[in-house]
């Protein structure tokens, strides 16, 4: 069985009067099981020469519905002003903005596209999908 582990650490010495130190680890399982996810897109890098509007980054058609994939997306740029807006589905429900250097890690059921809108030209992102077949 494939075992893939994701660990997040949140830390701060000065956000509050007490130090912040949170660590969360998960093993990436197929939906409703303790069997590991066994497929991946690999780490993709995409360079957008032109600004994008609701462009498909991850197509739900490539994945089985009602599964338990995971998605990591990173804005590779360094700008604190330009960002990618990450959106879900045909209605482009906005999840949030990734500014330069930001990343996100979310579960993905494979039922809706993940789209992006970018604020300017020559922006880059990286993403990986870890998923299961039916």
């Amino acid at each position, binding site marked *: 069985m494939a*075992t893939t582990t994701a660990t997040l650490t949140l830390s701060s010495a000065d956000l509050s009067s007490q130090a912040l130190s*949170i660590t969360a680890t998960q093993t990436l399982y197929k939906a409703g099981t303790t069997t590991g996810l066994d497929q991946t897109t690999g*780490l993709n890098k995409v360079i957008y020469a032109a600004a994008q509007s609701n462009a498909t980054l991850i197509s739900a058609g490539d994945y089985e519905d009602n599964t338990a994939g995971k998605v990591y997306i990173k804005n590779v740029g360094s700008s604190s002003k330009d960002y990618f807006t990450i959106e879900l589905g045909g209605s482009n429900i906005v*999840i949030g903005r990734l500014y330069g*250097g930001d990343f996100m890690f979310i*579960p993905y059921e494979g039922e809706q596209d993940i789209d992006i809108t970018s604020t300017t030209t020559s922006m880059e992102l990286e993403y990986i999908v870890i998923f299961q077949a039916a």
Partner: protein
Amino acid sequence: MATVTAAITLTSAVGDLLTDALALSDSTAVTALHTSGLARTKISATAAGASASTIYTADDYAAPCYMYVKNTQTTSSHYIYIYNDTTSGDPVEFKLAGGDWAFFPTNADKTLRAYGSSANHVIEWMVFGTEN
């Protein structure tokens, strides 16, 4: 201003997910002024609606912020659904299996609420951002 560092690693040994090892490591430093602190609650609702648990209220922050959410259940089929309560139709944004966590930015102008696949699932979450 304070700094919150968010760091992620994705790892898999040789011959597991891939024939080679997977070792992805990344971090970002977020300039932050405010935080909800790490919160935890038992979710009674099993569908979207007034009894669902609010984990972020629209416009509590005036600028994009960041969220960490974790389904603390130990059974993978015990799901927690995070939905957008501001947008018509209450679209589900994330379905967290037991043990799963997510980290993502949010535009801060939408209320996010949670319900479980059955009652009494426990969620933990934290919001931090540059303004309130």
